[in-house]
């Protein structure tokens, strides 16, 4: 089961839905949440904690590439390679947009109250916290590597915050 699935789409938000669906399916191949729900061949809820973590992180990475790397103008592709194994899912995402320095991204304030609720700057934090490992290597192509391991204990696969 270490064969890869590869999806390449234009780097705009129009193709976000397709990419998110494929990633959700790839997550399901690992988590075992049924791929062919007989009740609805296209049912696609994200319920399993593993699927939740993978899809949540991937949505942020995709948004950021379309918005920040490609500046909402497209002009390049987003290339996604998903490698499901029995224990984990590794997703590599490549783009040819503008690179950035991920270490300069400010962390979220540690204690939130009503007044400090953030209205932005949550994407990288969500992706990092949902995954076991997230790395970014500026390119070209810029390369994101997302890794999520299937937890064996209960309640162990969503977030580590």
């Amino acid at each position, binding site marked *: 089961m270490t064969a890869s699935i590869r999806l390449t789409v234009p780097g705009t*938000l129009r193709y*976000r*839905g397709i990419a998110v669906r494929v990633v959700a399916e790839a997550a399901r191949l690992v988590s075992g949440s049924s791929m062919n729900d007989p009740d609805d061949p296209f049912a696609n*809820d*994200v*319920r399993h*904690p593993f699927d*939740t*973590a993978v*899809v*949540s992180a991937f*949505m*942020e990475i995709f*948004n950021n590439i*379309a*918005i920040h790397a490609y500046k909402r103008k497209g002009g390049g592709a987003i290339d996604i390679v998903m490698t499901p194994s029995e224990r984990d899912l590794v997703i590599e995402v490549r783009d040819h947009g503008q690179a950035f320095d991920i270490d300069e991204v400010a962390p*979220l304030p540690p*204690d*939130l*109250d*009503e*007044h400090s*609720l*953030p*209205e*932005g700057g*949550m*994407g990288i*934090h*969500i992706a990092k*916290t*949902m995954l076991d490992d997230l790395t970014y290597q500026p390119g070209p192509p810029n390369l994101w590597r997302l890794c999520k391991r299937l937890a064996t204990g209960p309640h162990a696969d*969503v*977030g580590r*915050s």
Partner: protein
Amino acid sequence: MLPFEVSKNPGETKLTIRGSLDINTAPALAEEIDKILATKPAKVEVDLGPLDLIDSSGVAALVKLYKGVRGGGGNVRISGARDQPLAIFKLLRMDKVFNL
């Protein structure tokens, strides 16, 4: 069809959000939120029961609503969050502020 519904009763505005609240659907909600805030509502009920998925853009829209209503002296009650949206609110530690 819009991913949300608004109903206004005297003294209370109810907002129901469904499906996916994300970078593609949040802008329409943000416009609606501006309209709601313009009425200086005393109480806003947000029902997230039919919401399946949210991303940081969706969270930002809800934060804007929350801060706007509170800043105008009103109250916000958010209920019904489940599955992926609930996981996101917990991760962001907003579950306490939002009282989820």
